[in-house]
């Protein structure tokens, strides 16, 4: 029975407890609680289990309480959402430094490679086979983060489904010592952000040289896997034809286009599988010693809530920087991935970080108002076609960008053939014309 506001006293104790009488806890519980509050409790439990209870369903099933249900249950859902966010923030603030084990998932952990997305990545050695692999671990005990366990497993499951030459394959996933993990192929190579950084600071980079360079500052325990033959080449001063192929300079436009095309191919494949990557950025684009491009870290599922990101400090910008504006409002399209690829390419071409701000608030401001200089304003030698492609990717409105990875791929091909690239933000007639063209010509 619901009482009105004024009825209850500050303290509703009758002043008297029955001690020592055995009582079935459950019955006593049910007897003393308001019926609608019992329903509310049940609703919240379903929410916490990851089921999606419907307020309307409850209202219809319990018409007597329908009014209160419709009023209060959404409030509970909101409180639960707020709780998840605060927990996420608290967890990120307290990222553990190490782990209380050295073996996991049949692997011996060798050294930490990096942290990002929802976990920590280690280089590891499979105990049975001796193969070198990478292991990503959700660094909190699953008992602390039961909702996150589901998401992590979703991530692993999704990534394991991806079978494409430009996507890092996932082998296995599971839980051990109370921690979730998955194992994947170890890529002996370097990520695009390292390359960008090197290009920015030196006149150019010999690709093999870069691998050797980072070999030097590898963490303790790092094991070089098989194909490090490029290491030998780097000590050779003269440029052989082979080394030439692997050299990247600030003006390697064709190579940059190639890289973008490979990422695009991976996205085409993923999108066909109805999977969005949601976190394309230079750090997630790996180049191995053979120059092959692979994307990794399908770390955020489709239903990612951007507010779960670390809210403190510029270091949080890592992922936020490349995020399409509509994603901040909670929606995501295929073109959101293309946006992120566009910004990645922007950075590769201009050697400029794109959106960059001292605080998250300023960063969000920049992303929303789209105040980025055009690539050729930063470097006049960037080919016009590439600039156009980048601008087509990073248009503020999703409907003014490439609508599919196919379209982007087509334009990258055209650029490779020295054909003219057009802006996607043209008038409606011209748009229709282009649509017809792209339908028939590819």
């Amino acid at each position, binding site marked *: 029975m*619901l*009482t009105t*506001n004024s009825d*209850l006293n*500050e*303290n*509703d*104790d*009758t002043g008297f407890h029955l001690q020592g009488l055995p009582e079935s806890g459950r019955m*006593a*519980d049910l007897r*003393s*609680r*308001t019926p*609608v*509050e*019992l329903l*509310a*409790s049940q609703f*919240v*439990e379903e929410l*916490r*289990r990851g089921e999606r209870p419907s307020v309307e369903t409850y209202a219809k099933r319990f018409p007597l309480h329908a009014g*209160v249900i419709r*009023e*209060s249950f*959404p*409030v*509970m*859902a*909101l*409180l*639960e*959402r*707020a*709780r998840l*966010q*605060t*927990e996420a*923030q*608290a967890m990120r*603030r*307290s990222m553990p430094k190490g782990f209380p084990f050295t073996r996991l998932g049949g692997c011996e952990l060798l050294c930490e490679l990096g942290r990002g997305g929802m976990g920590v990545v280690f280089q590891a050695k499979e105990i049975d086979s001796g193969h070198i692999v990478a292991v990503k671990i959700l660094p909190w*005990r699953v*008992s*602390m983060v039961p909702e996150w366990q589901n998401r992590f497993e979703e991530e692993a499951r999704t990534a394991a489904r991806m079978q494409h030459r430009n996507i890092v394959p996932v082998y296995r996933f599971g839980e051990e010592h109370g921690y979730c993990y998955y194992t994947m192929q170890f890529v002996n190579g370097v990520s695009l952000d390292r390359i960008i950084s090197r290009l920015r600071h030196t006149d150019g980079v010999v690709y093999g040289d870069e691998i050797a360079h980072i070999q030097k500052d590898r963490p303790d325990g790092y094991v070089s896997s098989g194909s490090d033959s490029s290491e030998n080449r780097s000590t050779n001063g003269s440029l052989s034809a082979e080394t030439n192929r692997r050299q990247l300079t600030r003006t390697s436009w064709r190579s940059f286009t190639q890289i973008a095309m490979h990422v695009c191919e991976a996205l085409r494949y993923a999108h066909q599988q109805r999977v969005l990557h949601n976190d394309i950025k230079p750090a997630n684009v790996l180049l191995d010693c053979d120059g092959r491009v692979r994307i990794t870290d399908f770390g955020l599922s489709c239903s990612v*809530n*951007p*507010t779960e990101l670390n*809210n*403190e400090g510029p270091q949080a910008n890592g992922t936020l920087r490349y995020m399409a504006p509509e994603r*901040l*409002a909670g929606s995501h399209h295929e073109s959101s991935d293309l946006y992120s690829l566009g910004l990645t390419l922007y950075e590769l071409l201009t050697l400029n970080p794109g959106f960059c701000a001292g605080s998250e*608030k300023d960063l*969000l*401001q920049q992303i*929303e108002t789209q105040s980025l200089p055009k690539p050729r304003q930063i470097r006049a030698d960037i080919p016009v076609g590439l600039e156009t492609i980048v601008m087509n990717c990073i248009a503020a409105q999703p409907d003014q960008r490439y609508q599919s990875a196919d379209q982007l791929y087509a334009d990258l091909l055209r650029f490779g053939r020295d054909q003219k690239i057009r802006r996607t933000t043209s008038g409606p007639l011209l748009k229709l014309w282009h649509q017809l063209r792209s339908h028939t010509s590819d």
Partner: protein
Amino acid sequence: MTHSGSDDPSAQNNALIDRVIAGDHDALAELFSQHRDRLWRMISFRLDPRLHGRVDADDILQEAWLAAVQRIDHFLSDASRSIFVWFRLIASQTLIDVHRRHLGTQKRNAALEFSINRGWSSDSTSSALSFHLLGHLTSPSQAALREELSNQLQQSLASMNDIDREVLALRHFEQLSNKETAQILGISDQASSDRYMRALGRLKNVLQIMPEFSD
């Protein structure tokens, strides 16, 4: 019930309890570990944002553990109704001490503060709640709105009955059951149940002012 291990009357726990009463620290540690996650949650939620980066929940949990060891002799008398509530009380007091140490007592209004048995001041629950509720607005236009609403929301929450506000915090942010909430607030199960529903109703009125709230 989603929580596990709390006041589990199993034979195993009874044996542990006997040992704790006899002064066994290891047994106390085992009981503590059963509730560790929930205590961590409580501390994380209640930690004043100004202390982020200076103090973390693990540190405070550690201090709370040491405080519990100090009080092991009081276990029999104080933890008889609920072991979890006893640990929580100690953790809560530790948290208050940490806040005082770092932030002084400027914000405290003694009249608003719960008695030490209740554990927390209405003032800090208000700001904790509004801080978290508004946390989901992140675009810049929303961020500006957030600041404005934060003040309004704080005032509205402040105008709510202390217990109503605490009930929401305990039920949702600490994920406590109706029974545990009742024990912590020192009211009956029935009262706790009623209070919760009423608090939801009042918060709903407060939230009418938030633009996104049309789930």
